[in-house]
């Protein structure tokens, strides 16, 4: 009888569902970007994938005229008010989408491996401190890379059971040394 040796990993990665935050979708024409950023008290980065933060508020550039903004629950109203005050001078679209997504945090030794198993994009090519809107199996997600093995993933809530089921399957595979 032969014995096979596997490198078992008891906990390939940690999967956490993070508490709710304020989420906004912001659209503004490039020519008005700087003025709006000043009015909202935020930095709106111009390179797709680039991030900025101010206090507990985080911004991710998704497109040439599109940003995702995450805020603490307590700061939601202030952001909405700042947008409304600037609206007449700086036409833009600031839509609250807080209930649309749920954030998963993946961290630990094989977090990157787990994402690589599902996402067609080269996840390791996303530098730490940046992010991307990308594809996780069939679900569009916002991926934030906070560390080499530390990711946050904003998933549309209707896709969450599907995403979690895939991650559960990957956990089993990684645990068994596949």
């Amino acid at each position, binding site marked *: 009888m032969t014995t096979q040796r596997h490198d078992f990993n008891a906990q390939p990665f940690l999967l956490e569902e993070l508490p709710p935050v304020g989420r906004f979708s912001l659209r503004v024409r490039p020519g008005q970007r700087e003025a709006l950023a000043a009015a909202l008290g935020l930095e709106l980065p111009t390179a797709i*994938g680039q991030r900025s933060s101010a206090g507990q508020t985080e911004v991710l550039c998704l497109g*040439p005229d599109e940003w995702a903004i995450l805020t603490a629950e307590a700061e939601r109203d202030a952001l909405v008010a700042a947008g409304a005050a600037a609206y007449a001078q700086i036409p833009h679209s600031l839509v609250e989408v807080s209930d649309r997504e749920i954030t998963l945090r993946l961290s630990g030794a094989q977090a990157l491996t787990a994402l690589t198993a599902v996402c067609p*994009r080269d996840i390791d090519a996303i530098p730490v401190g940046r992010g991307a809107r*990308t594809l996780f199996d069939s679900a569009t997600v916002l991926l934030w890379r906070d560390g080499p093995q530390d990711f946050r993933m904003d998933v549309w809530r209707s896709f969450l059971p599907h995403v979690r089921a895939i991650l559960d399957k990957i956990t089993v595979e990684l645990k068994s040394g596949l």
Partner: protein
Amino acid sequence: MLLINCPYCEATLPELEFAYAGEAHIDRPADPSALSDEEWRDFLFIRTNARGPHFERWRHIHGCGRFFNAVRDTVSDRFLMTYKAGEARPVLNALEAAE
């Protein structure tokens, strides 16, 4: 899998993030009611169906979300170039010479 360069993301990314959106540089008629049925049919349905370099639209739907244009060789499936929506149609001879 095809790798497609998104001119907005300035990155070469897997085809799965993109959606094909038909032939490029087809202008909607300025005055549709002035067209004959045959002209309207041609606008809606008749395409060049090129064998070789083809100007086509793509959308980076699972990424930046933008539409852009591409020149793809329908024989080799090779992308000759991609460029932003609204930019002029590139000259083919120069592209082919560069290939």
